[in-house]
């Protein structure tokens, strides 16, 4: 069952990634991207790499998203 | 016998030092003249001091650096190179005197540039003459290209800039071909040094990291690439386009292009290709020189026909150079001892006659502003000395005995008949006739048409070199058997080249 979980997770990641790319609103894209980071975090945990998972959660989902949000705050949230 | 001697480097260094001094202090008229004249005389002295030893069979060597291992910059004085250097440095003296007179009216800045780059060009020419290997020759060949450019665009008019561009495109293209040939020769022979009976014939295969095999097709490629590469500067017929365009430059520059350095450098390069890189024996087995001979014939006849059509005096002179320089190639490609003598000798014959004519054309332009042939009515009576000299040079080109040009024609014909190539003998006769057809009308006009307009006195700074050069034309034609005079040097050089074959 855990392998099925893996598959579902991967499918989910792809979906989220597509959503990130498709989203017209940059703010939405950045927030979805942080969700993507959390998904990855799960994947790492599942693959037996808790240290990487923690780094991903902190850096990938956390800091990176904050940085994006700051930048979007300056540049405006609409993609033309 | 090879002797290490720094004099070749010294000859080069004098010209270089002259260029530097002119650039540094040349705004002062007196210094500019002093450096140029002093260097010209000094260099002539150094070059001629090499002559007695060289005639006695000594070869002077001086290696400077080796930068890719095995090849590098080095100098080697053999008789053929020395002959070229002598012609060039003699003509430098006359051109310097002439230029001092000719450029008097120009701005200081232009004069500094002119005399500086002129000295650099002459330095490059000595480098070509004394090059120990093909790489050194190539370096100075390219240096010559680069340093001639500022001279060609001297007037900085749109026409001059266009001519300069054309000149660069042609000669850099030629340089590229030579470079390619250089790489091919190094690969095939593993060395680039002259002074063996044919680099490629020796076929040494011990380059720094090993050479490769040598095929017949490869040899043909090397020959074609090198001959065409040098042929650009020698203004061989399909590659001659730059030469007439470059006529926009002032007269002393034309003298440099046509007599002192540039076209000669190309012809000299081809002589090196034939005698030193391939060697007489190897070429005798291959059929390449036949093709070169026909190329030369095309240039000799074609150049003359084009010259005939020109109405501008300097352009007619330019096209006649296309024709005249190819004598050297024709003679060299005949591959027999008599023709070899004339291949070398003609470097001087053509140089002195052609420089005389250019000097006269320049003096006419300076004195009266006339450039077209149909404006020259009666000028012979207004400028008797100059036009007398002009007539001597013209007669020499036509091939009148006792003048330098006769010697050329006579020996080429002899050489051609020796090799039973009577076709080429006929070409020489036809070429002489064509010369008559386009030079005699000019002389006729000058002496037998009524005088028109006034002509200012060109002054002795212009007249002196003209008369001296014309005198040389006579001298070359009449002193064939005096020791240490040009003809004996050329025949000794040819003898050395053929003696190596005999061994």
């Amino acid at each position, binding site marked *: 069952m855990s*392998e099925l979980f893996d598959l579902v997770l991967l499918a989910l990641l792809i979906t989220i990634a597509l959503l990130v790319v498709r989203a017209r609103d940059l703010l939405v894209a950045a927030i979805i991207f942080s969700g993507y980071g959390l998904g990855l975090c799960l994947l790492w945990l599942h693959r037996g790499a808790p240290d990487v998972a923690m780094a991903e959660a902190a850096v990938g989902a956390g800091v990176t998203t904050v940085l994006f949000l700051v930048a979007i705050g300056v540049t405006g949230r609409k993609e033309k | 016998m090879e002797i290490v001697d720094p004099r070749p480097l010294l000859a080069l260094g004098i010209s270089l030092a002259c260029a530097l001094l002119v650039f540094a202090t040349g705004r002062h008229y007196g210094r500019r003249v002093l450096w140029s004249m002093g260097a010209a005389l000094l260099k002539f002295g150094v070059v001629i001091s090499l002559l007695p030893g060289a005639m006695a069979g000594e070869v002077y060597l001086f290696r400077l650096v080796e930068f890719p291992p095995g090849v590098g910059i080095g100098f080697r004085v053999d008789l053929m190179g020395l002959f070229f250097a002598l012609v060039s440095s003699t003509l430098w003296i006359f051109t310097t005197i002439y230029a001092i007179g000719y450029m008097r009216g120009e701005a200081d800045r232009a004069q500094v540039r002119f005399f500086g780059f002129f000295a650099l060009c002459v330095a490059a020419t000595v480098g070509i003459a004394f090059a120990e290997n093909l790489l050194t020759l190539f370096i100075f060949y390219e240096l010559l290209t680069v340093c001639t450019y500022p001279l060609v665009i001297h007037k900085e008019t749109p026409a001059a800039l266009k001519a300069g561009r054309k000149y660069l495109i042609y000669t850099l293209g030629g340089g590229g071909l030579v470079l390619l040939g250089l790489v091919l020769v190094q690969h095939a022979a593993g060395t680039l040094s002259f002074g063996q009976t044919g680099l490629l014939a020796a076929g040494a295969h011990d380059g720094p990291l090993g050479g490769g095999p040598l095929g017949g097709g490869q040899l043909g490629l090397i020959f074609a690439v090198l001959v065409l590469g040098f042929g650009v500067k020698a203004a061989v017929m399909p590659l001659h386009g730059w030469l007439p365009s470059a006529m926009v430059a002032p007269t002393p520059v034309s003298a440099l292009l046509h007599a002192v350095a540039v076209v000669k450098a190309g012809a000299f390069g081809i002589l090196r290709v034939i005698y030193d890189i391939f060697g007489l024996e190897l070429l005798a087995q291959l059929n390449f020189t036949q093709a070169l001979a026909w190329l030369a014939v095309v240039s000799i006849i074609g150049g003359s026909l084009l010259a005939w059509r020109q109405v501008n005096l300097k352009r007619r002179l330019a096209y006649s150079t296309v024709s005249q320089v190819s004598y050297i190639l024709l003679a060299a490609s005949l591959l027999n001892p008599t023709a070899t003598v004339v291949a070398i000798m003609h470097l001087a014959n053509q140089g002195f006659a052609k420089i005389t004519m250019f000097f006269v054309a320049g003096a006419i332009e300076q004195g009266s502003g006339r450039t077209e042939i149909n404006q020259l009515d009666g000028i012979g009576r207004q400028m008797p000395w100059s036009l007398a000299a002009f007539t001597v040079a013209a007669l020499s080109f036509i091939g009148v005995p006792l003048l330098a040009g006769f010697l050329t024609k006579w020996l080429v014909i002899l050489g051609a008949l020796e090799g039973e190539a009577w076709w080429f003998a006929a070409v020489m006769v036809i070429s002489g006739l064509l010369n008559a057809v386009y030079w005699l009308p000019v002389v006729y006009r000058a002496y037998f048409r009524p005088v028109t307009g006034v002509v200012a006195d060109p002054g002795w700074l212009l007249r002196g070199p003209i008369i001296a050069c014309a005198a040389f034309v006579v001298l070359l034609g009449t002193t064939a058997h005096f020791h240490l005079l040009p003809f004996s040097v050329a025949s000794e050089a040819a003898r050395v080249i053929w003696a190596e074959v005999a061994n």
Partner: protein
Amino acid sequence: MLPEMLLELRPNLDYAAVVVLFCIGLYAVIVKNNLIKKLLGLNIMETAVFAFIVTSGMVEGGAPPVLGPGVMPPLASPLPHALILTGIVVALATTALALALIIRIYLQHGTIEADQLRELD
């Protein structure tokens, strides 16, 4: 039925998913016009590569299937994790620098759309 087939194919599907993620990222980098979108795409590419390394190298017990019967060492060394961790840090640094640049570009030009920026030149 279907799940079992999928499970058999699972290892390959892993790689397929990684490749798909990589391509989605690349698509965004190349096609998207907005610089922030490009950067998001780059981040997705980065995670795809991390996932690939984890999948190929760190699955415990068993050689990586697509890679065939290679030499599989015991994973005593902490190096591969360090590899990814460094990768994450580098990715963060890159993103931070890129965002700084984007902000500067926006302040200078008033836009972060690639085609408009090109016209400005």
